[in-house]
């Protein structure tokens, strides 16, 4: 799903993005997450908004039976088309983890006309978070 004010055509077909003013600067995308072996293991959302301090890019990754992660990306793109963000919160097995995540757009070069135009590659590095007494 891709939803944003003025998005044309809306995805999926038949979806109506609300015309409320509060959502005029919000763009939301929903994804299926695949692991390195190309198997679907979860679902995710990527939301891009704009507030007084600039662009806000948030990911939520949900892996059934494992937990969910909330990642707040830095808006500026790095060399190589990367963007990096910080794991802010998690549930279940991610509850005691911190770390970094990078996102990168990888275009599809297979030449298959039915293939999607590309994919978003997410790489996450975890570190154990120590609770301060």
């Amino acid at each position: 799903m891709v939803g944003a004010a003025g998005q044309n055509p809306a995805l999926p077909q038949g979806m109506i993005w609300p015309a409320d003013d509060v959502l005029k600067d919000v763009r939301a995308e929903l994804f299926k997450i695949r692991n390195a072996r190309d198997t679907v293991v979860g679902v995710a959302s990527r939301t891009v908004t704009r507030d007084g301090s600039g662009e806000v890019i948030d990911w939520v990754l949900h892996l059934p039976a494992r937990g969910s992660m909330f990642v707040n990306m830095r808006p500026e793109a790095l060399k190589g088309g990367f963007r990096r963000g910080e794991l802010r919160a998690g549930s279940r097995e991610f509850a005691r983890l911190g770390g970094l995540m990078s996102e990168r757009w990888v275009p599809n070069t297979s030449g298959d006309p039915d293939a999607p135009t590309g994919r978003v590659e997410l790489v996450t590095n975890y570190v154990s978070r120590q609770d301060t007494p």
Partner: protein
Amino acid sequence: MMKYFIALLLGALLGAAIFAIGLIHNPFNVDSGLSPLSVSDSEVIALSFSGVPSEAIVFTNDGDSHVKPFPEKVQQLWEAPIRLSSVTATVVYDARGQAAGLGIKFSSRSERTRLLQGDAIVDSAWYIYLPDRGSLFVEQSENHWGYLRDVVFPAYRSSANSWKGAWLGDLTVGPGALHTAAVTGGAGSLRGLKMEAVESLSVRAYSFDSGPVAAEGRLLIELPWTSEGLEGESSSE
């Protein structure tokens, strides 16, 4: 020989019926009662949203459930690891009924479900963006047993495959010790804040063929007692 077989069959049917009645009307399964946040003195953010999938922006699941994805052409979550999951994107409203932002909810049936103990557990996570305040991540475990027992099962038993009435219950049962969800602020004035929340559901009509017909969800998010940047911005709603 035949009479023993008939007696065995009747005994098995009677046992199954007693088991089903005991499961649904188990006196040891009591509702958790009043949410701790509903009597809190702290300032709260009260959000509501439609509980009817066809009133969401997008709702999707495995496609085989009686609650159908919306809109029809949305991709379904048919792959084995996500088959027991659903995703909803919806507008969230403030206490005055004005659109306040966007909510995206991920839910998965939990392996911790124990129907004999009255636990129909769903693990869920909300992403909420409120332009006036910032973004929030809400992670929680929900117990849908009361909803299944009082709404879905009566609709299934009804000759019209539907239920009408008034059901209101808190769904959140954790991870907080007081049956509250854990909330983390991501951006805006809520950035870095740790909060608690409770999600509740109010249902007035349910159809076993299509799911909730008239239902409203509510999220009550308790703001921290002291927080720089929130002064003058938060209001008890």
